[in-house]
């Protein structure tokens, strides 16, 4: 079904109440495949409120630091760059496919924000980490310093994936039956890494150091 863009321009209210109408697929096709800016403007007018409402239902929305409308704009921007031109007809043939991927773009926007906020929290807390290595290089060093496979796994779970002891023992109960087992193993790893990476300082006042 082909619709006239000028008609659509005058029919925002109609479009808002017929979001699942197959005719809207033609609007998307013109906007993203043909690059018609009038159609693109209509997409923004119609779908920003829809996508913003959807973003508010995302399971990680409460952990994010943006309002829902900002996520809707980011999602539409990412959508454009992902499917413009000839990619559009290759990926989509009906409106539900388009809406599914648009909703995925909302998820992407929220998760990107959540990940970056966590990273900035860490940087704000400790602005100048004393470790100069690039991440992959540093993790290669950590891996070399920990010959036991379980220690390497635990270092990855804790330092790369930031998992808490309770999460780790739930995931690997045969290796670490309780969170306390995780913490005990981590203590040994932490001490070894601090010493080996030259960051031990004077912290072993307890006299308990030494492997």
């Amino acid at each position: 079904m082909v619709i006239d863009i000028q008609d659509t321009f005058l029919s925002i209210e109609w479009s808002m109440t017929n979001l699942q109408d197959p005719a809207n697929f033609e609007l998307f096709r013109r906007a993203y495949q043909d690059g018609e800016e009038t159609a693109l403007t209509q997409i923004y007018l119609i779908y920003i409120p829809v996508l913003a409402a959807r973003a508010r239902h995302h399971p990680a929305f409460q952990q994010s630091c943006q309002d829902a409308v900002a996520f809707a704009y980011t999602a539409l921007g990412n959508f454009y760059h992902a499917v413009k031109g000839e990619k559009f007809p290759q990926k989509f043939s009906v409106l539900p496919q388009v809406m599914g991927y648009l909703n995925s773009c909302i998820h992407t926007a929220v998760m990107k924000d959540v990940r970056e906020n966590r990273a900035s929290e860490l940087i704000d807390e400790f602005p100048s980490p004393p470790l100069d290595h690039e991440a992959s290089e540093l993790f290669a060093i950590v891996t070399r310093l920990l010959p036991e496979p379980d220690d390497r796994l635990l270092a990855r779970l804790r330092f790369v994936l930031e998992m808490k002891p309770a999460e780790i023992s739930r995931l690997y109960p045969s290796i670490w039956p309780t969170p306390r087992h995780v913490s005990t193993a981590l203590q040994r790893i932490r001490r070894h890494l601090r010493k080996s990476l030259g960051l031990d300082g004077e912290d072993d006042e307890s006299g308990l150091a030494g492997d």
Partner: protein
Amino acid sequence: MKCINPPALSDEALSLALDGLADAKTLHHLDQCHACAERFARMRHFESALQTRLRRFDCPSPQDLTDFHAGMLEEAEANAIQNHLVDCPRCQAEIEMLVQFLDLPSDRATVPDNIIPLRSPRYVTKATRVETFGSLALKGLKDEQDELSHDERSGSARIFLESKTVATGILVTGQVIDSEVDWKGAIAEVRQGGVTQQVKVLDDMSEFSFELLSSAPITISITSASGTTLVIENLTFQP
């Protein structure tokens, strides 16, 4: 500095405290003893330094995970992500969250928008005005009486805007110059009174243009393919 209440806390006790598993006695000791508290702070700093540097360094981006789930990646990329997912509970959880999100019914009632943003996201930059002048330095157009040029700076980008009175209102043209971000193909969205008026795609010279029917203040948001957004707020053009 010596522990005020020997014996000093062991490394194991401090490690438990770091993991949120310390008992009340340990927490009380940490509260009273500066020496042990300082050791604890150093351990915590080391932990955070490691996490800051290593945090999900080898995880696919959220966009790649989404495209993987949508079956939009090349085979090699999809295989790499499939292999990563086997050992990464965080990415597994993100995929599960995506599935859960996509399964939500579309007609679910809207919840109130009562979330207060805690800070501006790092990839959104607001422009600040640096100059307003009458000549059109960038594009070399004639310096006509009814033309104005604005020069906005935002992050590494410099945004040049020109306005010109035309029969239907005000014609605004713009260009983004940036040494770091590629703005070709970016999307410029113009809002007036909070409502989208026009959406334009920046051309190969990172230029765009739009017509305004009224002189009410506008906000321009320009989003690059890499996801960086420039926001120019409260711009006014007089006819």
